[in-house]
């Protein structure tokens, strides 16, 4: 069996990539993609832990499924907000959104 640590390293790397995307991309949709990466990193963790620690109890698997659902819901709302912003401003670049500050 592939050691647990390998999965965790992949997941940690994916998570860091996600954070990087969130911090670095200027387009709101791309930032959203970054958060999806982070969620998927957590999913890898969950499944890997489930397989290695408690394969008899399904909670890790179920958690993963729930994360999928939530991620989808989140993406739906996020994209809706992006569309709302786009229709009024013609851009989804987050740096242009600084009406609110200070």
């Amino acid at each position: 069996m592939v050691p647990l640590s390998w999965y965790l390293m992949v997941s940690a790397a994916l998570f860091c990539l996600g954070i990087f995307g969130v911090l670095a991309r200027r387009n709101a949709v791309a930032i959203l993609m970054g958060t999806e990466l982070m969620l998927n990193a957590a999913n890898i963790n969950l499944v890997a832990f489930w397989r290695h620690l408690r394969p008899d109890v399904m909670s890790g698997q179920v958690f993963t499924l729930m994360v999928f659902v939530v991620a989808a819901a989140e993406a739906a709302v996020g994209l809706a907000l992006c569309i709302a912003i786009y229709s009024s401003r013609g851009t989804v670049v987050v740096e242009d959104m600084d009406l609110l500050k200070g």
Partner: protein
Amino acid sequence: MREALFNLTWLIPLFPLLAFALIILWTHPSRKWSTWVAWIGIGLAWLLGWTMFFLSWGDIHHLTPPEGNHPVPLWALPTGGSVLKIGFQIDTLTALMLFMVPFVCLMIFVYSKGYMGYGTEHPDPRYSRFFAYISLFACGMLGLVVSDNLLTLFIFWEIMGLCSYLLIGFWYDKSYPDPNRITPRQAGLKAFLTTRVGDVIMLIGLLLLYSQVGSLSFKDVFSQETLHMLAEQELWMPIFGTAPVATVIAILIFGGAVGKSAQFPLHVWLPDAMEGPTPVSALIHAATMVSAGVYLVARCFPLFMAVPLDHGGVQLAVVAFIGAFTALAASTIALAQNDVKRVLAYSTISQLGYMIAALGIGAYVAAVFHLITHAFFKALLFLGSGSVIHGVEHGHHKIAHGHHDHEEGHFDPNDMMNMGGLMNKMPRTAWTFIIGGGALAGIVPLAGFWSKDEILAHAWHEFQHTQHFGTFWPLFVWLLLTVAAALTAFYTARQICLTFLGEPRTEAARHAHESPPSMTWPLMILAFFAVILGLFGTPWANQYHELVGEAFAATPFDPFVAGLSTVLAVGGAVCGWLVYGRAPLRAGQVDPLKRWLGPVHGVLENKYYVDELYRLIVIRPVLRLAELCAKFDYDWVINRLVNTIGQLSIRTAERLGGLDLAVVDGTVNLVGRAARGLSTLSNTVDLKGVDGAVNGIGHVVKAGGRQMRTLQSGWVQDYLLLAVTMAIILLGFMLLVLPILR
């Protein structure tokens, strides 16, 4: 106490690394802060390094290998079947390197402030980035010397390679009117690719070693059993036939050293590396990084010693031959160079050849001794030449301001033919340069004399008394090195005469002036060390031997060798003075050497046409092949596919580029704002807090609020960046600091 301190070894490379991160992330916009952060980073590393050095000097047996080295395991990576342990260690060799590396780094950091134009009207536009890079470099070098295994050593090795590339190409936008002259960008690439050849060879060696031993830590690899096992086993290779595994591995690892320490045939990158800023040349391409190759061989010396010559162990012979050949060849090239830095570059190659050759004949202590002294006086010489260039350039600017039509860009401040008579203009630089030159030439009693003499004496001794390395090699090495020593004295004298004596040969030199104190002070300090360091290594009381050479027999003093090398050094220097010093060159006069040597001079000036040769047999065929492949791709079969993939990757690369910018910009902006806020805050505290009145406190509270408010920039990514950064800090605090506090 001592144990606890040694356990902090890992902090030494960490400080400069932190400085690098701080500058890149936070203090980038402020030159002042960047300078200070870099200085503090290297300063702390220096303090810790010297503390450890003097501690280990006080108790040498405590640290003498094999049982004495002090490992500090850091973490372990499970790799399938085995566990890869990574950590740091202190032993006497490391301690000695810790004496040299951080101190020379510190001097050069200090010097860089003035050289990069801090506080002048035209500071370098990438000033802060420069300090970030050299801090990262310092991290690489310090990490290399404190690694306890070949893997981390290789990682730090590559970090240095990266820094070297970045710093050689630091002025990447510079171009010259002469199309044949190499630009900094090309030079950086050349250095990177050339050393890469060596690195790949070294990596193959490491892989072979790992496959045989299952470990890369020094302790495992250099244990008696392992070495014995490696010496016994044979490896069959096509063409070469069978050879002991230890020999193959040693030669492969030596490949890395050849690349990094610029030995023939991979030496071509080092002279061109002089396109970088002079502090970089001093730091990386003279004092520290290039000596990493020597350090590597010294570190792996047990492996090199594992198989004697009569059992097919040719590795030391290879080392000795390459070193000695390089030492002589490079010193002949140096005779015919006019660029003040290139002369030094070839002398560096030559001196590194000395060290390598010394290792090749078993003069371990002498090689390490020479490594240390060379680092100091070569850093001194480079910084001195930087100071000269700086002065001449300023002189040039001064007159260029006078006449606007002055042909800008055609003037080469590095060319010694444009100098002359600078002794009076720049006395401090001149005197320190002469001391450094004396040390390089091997004039008694300066540092270089003692270390060079020990190498020569050892070679002579090997030849006369023992046949451990065969009969032929020590004599051959001794002969080549002795000739090289004479040549070294000659070209050093030539350089000093051309630069400092006589009358200024150009307007620029006439208007040159002494450099700022932040540049001259490091020169003087280094000059002090260039004088005294050798005195610790005299044949009668060789501290170096006691420190690192417990396992080796001391080299006895040989009056013949010492006398001969003194005569040759003084003779070479006097010859140099007779040719160039007695009747100084005037403007437009041809180098007398050119007249006497005739066509040979041309060969030397063109560095034996090695570059041309490589262009002919390596670069051009590769380009041809690439063109052929391109044609194949473009015209035939997979045109479409390739285009698609290519465009895709170009787009990705563009994205990545944008991403990069976005990150750096975003971070820098936020952080800059925060830093500015904090500095204003501290300013306010300074101004107002002194009053101490309630009124003042009120002001501070308000100012604090106002400054904190700037954090609220309105950009959600700034918010997230703060959150993530703070989370990481908290995590570090919880995992690293809190357990210590408890």
